[in-house]
């Protein structure tokens, strides 16, 4: 007997669900997220101010901002959980409230803690599935996908935070939605779990789904995101691709290693704006590029072991861009780093930084301070000698 010949109640129910599911998928069309002029005010505090951005199918869009910048509030407003003071968010042309069974079109995970601790993991997914007419078999499938099959019968209060994140992600994938929205999904996950989340999200994007993900793990974001939406104090600071963002906002410098470093330094003279030494044979040179250093070394017969263009990581660029937009900032704390020595003409240190040391971003400096020297987390070489 074929599925269409199944005249039992459960068979008819399955066919009705399948028709509804297909109707939903067709009506939602492509999966563009359009946020337009969303504002949200809590009493006298304006948490989000006229925020607009787009997220497109086939791309992971990173939603970045310092703590308290309004990322979670924006996501709650997009889903209609917080009532936006003004503005709209549309998912493939529909507001969230216009979608009758949203798990088929928009999967969201705002916090892995939004689970009743006394309910089992499987039952948590089952009530979600029932509410949107999703078959119970899909529950077991998604539990398998997130690696929770063995723990599905345990109460959620016995789950670790990482297991709750996996359960939350199972809920996101329950209806195989075209749009995925996640707020800090890597929270509480171990490195393997973080990598797993990254692989899942990039896989979903490759399948053509729209992925909007907020995270404070900027290194992870740089490995995962195609586009960035950066906000600060509830306002849009920038929307662009990751590559454009880093290119526009990150500082570059030249790393050189040479057994004849002292001689190289004296030959460079005033051509270098600032020098950060790393031991006897290595230094970061600001204000001069690799070609200039290489040519000068060749002219004077100086042996080079390394000659690399370094640039800031996404994290450095992000911190620099949002430095003035942090609601709660730490006081400058120096991180141990080799002091600068043998500096030719040294530019005064950036606000909040010490010569030769790496500093956390200043609390509220004026816009875009000059790049602080950093020896940490370079985003990789572009050329080497």
């Amino acid at each position, binding site marked *: 007997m074929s599925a269409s010949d199944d005249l039992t109640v459960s068979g008819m129910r399955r066919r009705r669900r399948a028709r509804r599911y297909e109707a939903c998928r067709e009506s939602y069309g492509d999966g563009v997220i359009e946020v337009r002029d969303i504002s949200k005010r809590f009493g006298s505090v304006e948490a989000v101010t006229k925020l607009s951005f787009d997220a497109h199918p086939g791309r992971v869009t990173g939603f970045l901002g310092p703590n308290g910048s309004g990322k979670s509030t924006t996501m709650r407003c997009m889903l*209609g959980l917080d009532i936006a003071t003004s503005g709209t968010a549309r998912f493939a042309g529909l507001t969230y409230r216009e979608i009758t069974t949203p798990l088929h079109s928009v999967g969201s995970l705002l916090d892995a803690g939004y689970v009743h601790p006394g309910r089992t993991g499987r039952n948590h997914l089952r009530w979600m599935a029932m509410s949107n007419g999703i078959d119970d078999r899909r529950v077991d499938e998604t539990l398998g996908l997130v690696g929770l099959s063995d723990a599905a019968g345990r109460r959620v209060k016995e789950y670790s935070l990482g297991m709750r994140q996996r359960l939350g992600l199972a809920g996101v994938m329950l209806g195989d939605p075209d749009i995925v929205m996640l707020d800090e999904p890597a929270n509480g996950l171990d490195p393997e779990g973080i990598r797993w989340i990254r692989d899942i999200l990039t896989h979903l994007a490759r399948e053509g789904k729209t992925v909007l993900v907020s995270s404070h793990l900027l290194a992870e974001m740089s490995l995962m995101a195609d586009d960035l939406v950066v906000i600060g104090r509830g306002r849009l600071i920038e929307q662009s691709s990751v590559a454009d963002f880093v290119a526009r906002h990150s500082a570059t410098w030249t790393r050189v290693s040479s057994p004849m470093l002292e001689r190289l330094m004296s030959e460079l003279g005033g051509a270098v704006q600032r020098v950060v030494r790393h031991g006897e044979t290595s230094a970061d040179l600001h204000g001069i590029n690799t070609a200039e250093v290489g040519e000068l070394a060749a002219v004077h017969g100086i042996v080079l072991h390394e000659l690399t263009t370094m640039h800031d990581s996404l994290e450095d660029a992000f911190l620099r861009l949002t430095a003035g937009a942090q609601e709660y900032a730490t006081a400058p704390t120096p991180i141990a780093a080799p002091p600068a020595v043998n500096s030719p003409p040294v530019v005064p240190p950036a606000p909040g930084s010490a010569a030769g040391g790496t500093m956390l971003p200043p609390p509220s400096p004026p816009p875009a301070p000059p790049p602080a020297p950093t020896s940490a987390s370079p985003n990789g070489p572009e050329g080497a000698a």
Partner: protein
Amino acid sequence: MIDLLRSEWFKLRTVRLNLWLPALAVGGLVLVTSLVAVLTPDAEFLDATDLTAVIGGFSILVSMMIGVTTSLGITSEFNHDTIRPTLAATPQRQRVFVAKAIVSAVFGFLVGTVGAVASYGLGAILLSSRDGEVALSGDDGTLETMFGVVVLAVLLALFGFGVGLLVRNGPAAVSLVVLWPLLIESIIGGVLSVARVDEPQQYLPYTSAFTLVTPENSEPGRLYGGVFFGLVAIALVVLGSLVNGRRDV
């Protein structure tokens, strides 16, 4: 809507507390009725009116327990923030609250029915074995009392849900469900009595609903008490739905 009702019913029955509280209440009702049937010295003089009086009196506590359960059901959604995935799965808030109210009422109906049938059935068997006459009858109001047990359970289930939806806080909602008749309406009734208002019970919805489970047709009457309290319970649900339709969750 059917899917939503199934989902809400599933949520209600997959939390242990929602099973233990009514089981405890119904168990208590059956136990008390059985003890009365077994321990009363002159069983042959005990009739259906006496038995339903016992069941009706204790059923007030059972119904309160049902109200506590439904109020905890909705407040736990807010306390554990599960209301967010609930409304993310079904963003039409009024549909969610209507489904929850229906499920609460059905829950009250089932627990009230089980309590009434089990307690009366066991009491009747025990008393019959001791030559008691305990046949239910429409003439002496005993049948109405047993129906009243079920209706009161349904109304208190709705009342508990409505209170919980409005206050969104578990301890506050439970306190209100339990203390409303004992404290709030006692004070209001006292004030009305001092003010020499005739039949002050007719202005006290919760207390007037107790006439549903009173064997003799006492003032202000079963129908009045049931309708008055029912309207209050529905008003609380509607008000809670409207307020939460505009609130951040």
